[in-house]
């Protein structure tokens, strides 16, 4: 094994042990996000009784029957077949949560080719969580059928209508937010305090007295924080999905890639502070000064829609806005990375920026 690799692994191992033996850090990085998530989960309590679905099937094709069967097999749904007008009235009264209309041409062929067709769903504004959840299930069923029909471009689609603004469950909104917050705090606080403590105590200087360049120690610390953050993300996702019915519409790979981008940005900020500061007393005010406005103004706990235009414009550029927005788009709407060019560019620019600043500010002693 190459000596640099060996040194890096030794320092990573040491950093990992230091981390998991630090009870304060464990509470900070795992328990607090999980507790916050639980509070929001119970407040929004997305787990209600079954979702009442009013179904109108205008088609007679085998495909439509398959679709109805699939819907009926969903445990969370209570399906009632009815006419379009009756269902609309019931939806208005709140007797059903979701209306699903299968059009006549659903699954039909025209000149030997499948016809493009759109299933319409409408849901109750008063119970957006159920409607949203139901909608996502239907998207999945349709996507599945669509793949069966052809390898050609999408011909079947769901068109959702009825709720203009808040068509998300609050819990689906809050989970990526809390995760973004954890990423930021792990990056800034998780690294700044411990690193500056090692600098102030002389433990870092002791490493400099060995043949290893101390930058390997920075890499080792960063690697451990990256692992910890990804574990936090996994735990929050499992916890949120299992207990509060969180739905991941998009790809986990994209979701975790954005998490990694986020941790790179905030680790950079953490190392910039730790590299600049002489001791812990200098870290706290600076770290708070950076993270508090980001926390409040990046749309973590509530949407930025209510902000005055100027504030919204400024906070558009916050690194935490980019991270939380991208995570939400992926988790809630299934966006791919190429559909999030502004977020990706924004995060990329921030990564470069914070590392330039960190390198400029860094002092080893």
């Amino acid at each position, binding site marked *: 094994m190459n000596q640099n690799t*060996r*040194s890096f692994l030794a320092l990573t*191992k040491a950093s990992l042990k230091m981390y998991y033996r630090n009870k304060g850090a464990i509470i900070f990085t795992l328990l607090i996000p999980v507790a916050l998530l639980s509070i929001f989960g119970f407040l929004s309590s997305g787990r209600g009784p079954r979702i009442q679905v009013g179904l109108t099937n205008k088609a007679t094709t085998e495909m439509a029957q398959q679709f109805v069967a699939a819907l009926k097999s969903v445990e969370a749904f209570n399906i009632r077949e009815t006419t379009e007008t009756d269902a609309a009235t019931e939806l208005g009264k709140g007797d059903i949560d979701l209306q699903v209309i299968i059009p006549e041409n659903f699954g039909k062929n025209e000149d030997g080719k499948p016809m493009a067709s759109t299933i319409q769903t409408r849901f109750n504004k008063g119970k957006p969580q159920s409607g949203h959840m139901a909608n996502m299930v239907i998207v999945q069923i349709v996507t599945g059928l669509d793949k069966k029909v052809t390898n050609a471009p999408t011909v079947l689609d769901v068109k959702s209508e009825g709720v203009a603004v808040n068509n998300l469950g609050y819990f689906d909104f809050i989970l990526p937010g809390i995760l973004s917050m954890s990423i930021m705090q792990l990056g800034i606080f998780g690294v700044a305090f411990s690193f500056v403590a090692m600098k102030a105590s*002389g*433990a870092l200087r*002791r490493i400099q007295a*060995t*043949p290893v360049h101390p930058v390997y120690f920075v890499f080792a610390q960063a690697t451990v924080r990256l692992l910890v953050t990804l574990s936090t993300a996994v735990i929050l996702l499992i916890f949120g999905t299992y207990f509060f019915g969180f739905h991941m519409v998009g790809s986990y790979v994209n979701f975790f890639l954005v998490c990694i981008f986020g941790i790179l940005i905030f680790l950079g900020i953490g190392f910039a502070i730790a590299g600049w500061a002489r001791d812990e007393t200098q870290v706290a005010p600076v770290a708070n000064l950076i993270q508090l406005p980001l926390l409040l103004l990046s749309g973590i706990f509530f949407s930025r829609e209510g902000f005055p235009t100027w504030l919204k414009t400024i906070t558009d550029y916050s690194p935490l806005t980019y991270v939380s927005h991208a995570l939400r788009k992926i988790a809630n709407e299934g966006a791919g990375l190429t559909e999030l060019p502004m977020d990706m560019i924004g995060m990329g620019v921030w990564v470069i920026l914070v590392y330039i600043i960190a390198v400029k500010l860094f002092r080893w002693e």
Partner: protein
Amino acid sequence: MPVILEVNNLTKTYPNGVNAVKGISFSVNKGEVFGILGPNGAGKTTTLEMIEGLRPITSGTVLLDGIKTEEQPYLIKQRVGIQLQSSAFFQNLKLTELLEMFADLYGAKINSAELLADVGLQDKAGFLVKNLSGGQKQRFSIATTLVNKPVMIFLDEPTTGLDPQARRNLWELIAQIKSRGTTVILTTHYMEEASFLCGRVAIMDDGKIVALDTPDQLIKQLLAKGFVPHTEVPPATLEDVFIDLTGKTLRD
């Protein structure tokens, strides 16, 4: 005895203009314990750090075991063991884990139990550094300098702040390391320590070496100048009384 370290006209000027080391020259023989004495601010630590490759050299040369520090500071660090003045270690790591980490950083293989036994800490393998006494910390710190089987170790004020028992215990350890052929350079504020341990000492003041010889020779030279002690020196010291009453047994 062959020379292992040759320092020539070594100078350090800090960016703020402070001239901490002003062109000093000396050499250290293989296998000796060489002491650098001097009041605070004399430039002892700066001198050590330049030799070790921890601090850039303003001018002058250092040749250690045939290697120029300035040109290959990382190769120097590979060959020597360095104990810093304030020895701090990563928190929450056990002694064996720290030793193994240090060994990995040098690409060395060690038997950590044996190494801990060498410094009298065989019972403390699973301890954290913060749970050690002052003397044990210093002995552990010396153990970390030995992981790479260095040709030379640097000890910067190894006994400062220790009680007389722990200090004497550390002297024995240093003498033991010397007896295995390792060259030792140390700085100290304790003259009896220098007399006991060092083959030769350099006395530094204001960035310069003002005297360099064996302790006996330095005393002879002083007496030859007609020096008379202020008070009559009793044949025993208060420290001798203290050790007589409290014993040599370690208290940590």
